[in-house]
C-alpha cells in the first residue's frame, strides 16, 4: 500500500519535473520583418538582437529584411502566417489595423511617457495606441554654402519666412549653370508642411477634405510658384532621381529632405559644403512632417509568444534601445527625448573632417516639436496619386491651382462616398 502511494507520489513528482524541464527548454522563436536601409544599420540591429538573446536564452530572434516590405507583408497576411514583429509605416497603420493584424500595445509599451508625444500620437488611432516607434525623420531645409557664398547671401536660419525662402531661391537660380534655387519634388507629403504652416488642415471636423480653403490655396500657390516662376523645380527638371541627388550634385541650392539625406550626402558627395536649418515658418507658424515606422506585434499570437514579442519590441525601443539607435543611426533619430544628445554627439564624431556641422542636425530634432503625421484614412491611395499627378501638371502650368484643388477634392469625395 504504502509503497504504491509513495510510487505514485514519486511518479507525479517526476512527471512535474519533466513538464517543467520541457517548459524551461521550450524555445520561442521570434521573427522581426522589416527592410534594410543600409548595412551599418542592419549590423547595429543584429547586435541589439544578439544582446537580447544573451539576456533571454529561451528566445531566438531573427531579423528578416525584405526588398518590398509592404508587398511581402500583404502576402504574409493573406497566407495567414506572418511574422510576430514587423515594421509598420505610419502611413500603413490605418490599413493594417483595419485588417486586424496589429496587436494593441496600450499596456505593453515600456515607459510611453519617454517617447516624443507626437510619435506616440502617430501610432494611436481612435484613442488606441498600437506600437512604439522604431526611429523617425523630420523634414528640414538643406542649403549649399558654396552657392550661398557665391551669391553673397546670408545662410538660412530658423527664423526664415516663406518670403525669405522665395527671395533666396530667386537669387540663387542660375539658368545658364543649370542651378535651381529650391528642389520641389511633386509629392503630396513634401507639400503638406506648407499647408500646416499656412494654418490649413487636411480634413475638417466632419472628416471632409479641406484643401479648398484660403490656406490650402496659398500653400499650393507658393509651392507651385517655384516651378512656374523658374526658381525651383522637380528633381527630374535638373536630371536627378530625387531631391537629395539634385542637391548633392549642386544643381539645387536648397532642398527639403529628412534625416535620410545625411549619410547619403556624406557617402556620395564628401566635397559638398552644406548646412541644415529648420523649415521656414508660414503665417500660422512652424510645421514639418514626421516620417516614422513602429515595431508592430502580430495580432494572431498569444501567451508566452506574445510576451516574448513585446519583450523584443521594448528591448529595441526603451531608453537603451533609443541610445543604440542614436549611436548607430545612418540618419533617422531615436524616438526618446533622452537620446537626442547622444544622437548629435555620435554625428559629431562621424562628421569629423566633413564639410557639415553636426550641430546643424539639431534642426531635425527641433522639428519634432511641431511635426505632423504622415497618415491618411484607409483607401486614400488614389487621392495621393491624383494629387501628385495634379502637382506635376500645375508645375508645368497646364492647370491652375484652382483646377487642381477641384479635381483632388472630387477624388476624395469619391473615396469617402464609396
Amino acid at each position, binding site marked *: 500500500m504504502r509503497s504504491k502511494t509513495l510510487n505514485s507520489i514519486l511518479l507525479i513528482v517526476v512527471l512535474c519535473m519533466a513538464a517543467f524541464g520541457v517548459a524551461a527548454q521550450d524555445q520561442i522563436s521570434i521573427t522581426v520583418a522589416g527592410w534594410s*536601409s543600409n548595412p551599418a544599420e542592419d549590423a547595429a540591429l543584429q547586435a541589439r538582437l544578439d544582446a537580447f538573446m544573451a539576456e533571454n536564452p529561451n528566445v531566438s530572434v531573427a531579423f528578416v529584411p*525584405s*526588398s518590398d516590405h509592404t508587398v*511581402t507583408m500583404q502576402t504574409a497576411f493573406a*497566407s495567414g502566417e506572418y511574422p510576430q514583429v514587423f515594421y509598420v509605416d505610419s502611413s500603413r497603420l490605418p490599413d493594417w489595423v483595419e485588417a486586424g493584424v496589429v496587436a494593441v500595445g496600450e499596456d505593453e509599451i515600456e515607459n510611453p511617457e519617454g517617447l516624443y508625444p507626437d510619435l506616440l500620437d502617430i501610432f494611436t488611432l481612435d484613442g488606441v495606441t498600437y506600437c512604439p516607434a522604431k526611429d523617425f525623420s523630420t523634414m528640414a531645409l538643406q542649403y549649399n554654402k558654396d552657392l550661398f557664398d557665391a551669391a553673397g547671401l546670408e545662410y538660412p536660419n530658423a527664423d526664415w519666412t516663406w518670403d525669405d525662402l522665395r527671395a533666396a531661391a530667386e537669387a540663387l537660380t542660375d539658368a545658364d549653370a543649370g542651378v535651381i534655387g529650391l528642389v520641389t519634388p511633386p509629392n503630396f507629403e513634401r507639400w503638406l508642411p506648407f499647408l500646416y504652416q499656412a494654418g490649413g488642415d487636411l480634413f475638417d471636423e466632419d472628416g471632409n477634405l479641406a484643401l479648398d480653403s484660403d490656406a490650402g490655396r496659398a500653400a499650393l500657390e507658393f509651392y507651385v510658384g517655384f516651378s512656374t516662376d523658374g526658381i525651383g523645380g522637380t528633381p527630374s527638371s535638373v536630371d536627378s532621381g530625387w531631391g537629395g541627388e539634385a542637391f548633392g550634385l549642386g544643381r539645387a541650392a536648397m532642398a527639403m529632405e529628412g534625416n*535620410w539625406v545625411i549619410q547619403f550626402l556624406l557617402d*556620395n558627395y*564628401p566635397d559638398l559644403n552644406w548646412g541644415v536649418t529648420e523649415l521656414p515658418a508660414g503665417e500660422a507658424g512652424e510645421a514639418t512632417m514626421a516620417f516614422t515606422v513602429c515595431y508592430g506585434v502580430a495580432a494572431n499570437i498569444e501567451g508566452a509568444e506574445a510576451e516574448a514579442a513585446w519583450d523584443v519590441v521594448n528591448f529595441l525601443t526603451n531608453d537603451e534601445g533609443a541610445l543604440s539607435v542614436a549611436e548607430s543611426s545612418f540618419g533617422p533619430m531615436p524616438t526618446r527625448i533622452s537620446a537626442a544628445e547622444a544622437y548629435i554627439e555620435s554625428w559629431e564624431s*562621424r562628421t*569629423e573632417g566633413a564639410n557639415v556641422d553636426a550641430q546643424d542636425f539639431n534642426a531635425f530634432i527641433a522639428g519634432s516639436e511641431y511635426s505632423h503625421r504622415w497618415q491618411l484614412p484607409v483607401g486614400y491611395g488614389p487621392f495621393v496619386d491624383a494629387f501628385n499627378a495634379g502637382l506635376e501638371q500645375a508645375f508645368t502650368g497646364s492647370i491652375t491651382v484652382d483646377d487642381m484643388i477641384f479635381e483632388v477634392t472630387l477624388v476624395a469625395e469619391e473615396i469617402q462616398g464609396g
Partner: protein
Amino acid sequence: MATTAMTRSAPAETAGGGGGGLGRRLLTIFGLSFLILFALIQTVPFVLTISNSFKCLPGTRQAPEAFIPSQLNFIDCRTASGASIPLEDSVSGLTFKPSMEGYDEVLGTYPFPSWFANTVIYAVFVTVLRLAFDSLAGYALARMDFPGRRIMFFVVLGTLMIPAVVLIIPRFIILREIGILNTYQGLIFALAADAFGVFLMKQFFESIPTEIEEAAQVDGANRFTMFFRIVLPMATPALTALTIFSFQGTWNNFMDALIIVGGKADLWNLPLGMAQLRGQFGETLEWNTFLAGAVFTTIPMAILFFVFQRYFVEGVSYSGLKG
C-alpha cells in the same frame, strides 16, 4: 553576334571582285559603321556597369562616365574614421582608381553566395524538368492521335495568350493550399512546364519527316524507343534553344520568386537579392555595391551564351533527310 554577321558578309564582299565600284564601297562603309554604332550601343552600358562597380561612391554619382582604370592596385574608399574620400582622390577626367568596396560589400555584408546558390538550384531544376515535360508533351501533340488532341493543344496555346500578371494570385492561392509556399519545390514545381516550351517542341517535332519514325517502326521500335533514340537526338537545336530560354528565364525570374519564396530570405534568388541591394526606397542606393552584384548576376548568363552560341549557329542548318 555582331562578329558572325561580319564574317558572313565578308565573303560576299570579296565575291563582288572589283565590279562594285564606289557605290558598293560606300554601302559597305555605311553598313560597317552602322554595325559598329550598334555594337557600341550594346556594349557601352556593360562597360559602364563593370567600371562603376569598381569605383568609390562619389565617383559613381559624380563621374559615372569615367571608365578607364588608372592603376592596377585597389584603393581604399574610406578614411580611417569611415568618411568617404573626396572625389578628386579617386577620379580624374575619364580615368578612375579602382577599389573593391562594392565587391567587399556584396560578398561581405549580404548573403550573396546563398542567393547565387539558390538561383543555380532553381535554374537547373526548372530547366531539366522543362526539357523533360515540354518535349514529351510536344511529341505527344505532334505525333500521337488521341481524342481531344486538338482541343488540348489549343488549351495549352491559350495559356500563352493570358498575361502572366493575371496568374499571380491564383498561383499563389493554389500553392498556399498545397502548402508549399516558401519552399524550393514550390517555385520549381510552379515553373516546371510551360506552354511556350510545349509549343516550341511540338513545332519542331512536326518538322521532322515521319519517314524516319516509320522506318524505325518497321525495325520493331516502340513509341518510347523512337522518341528517346531517334527523335530526341535529332531535336538538339530545339532542346538547346529551350535550355537557354528556360535557364535564362528562371535565372532572371523576379516576379514568381517574389510571390512564391519572397517571404523567406534564405530562399531568395539573385533578382530578389538585387532588389534588396536597391534598398527600400531606392534613393540612397549604393551604386558600386549594386553594380558589383549586377556583374556577378550577369557573368554566368554571359558564359552560358558564349558556350551555346555555336549551337545557335549550327542549329540553323540541321536536317534529317537529304532532298
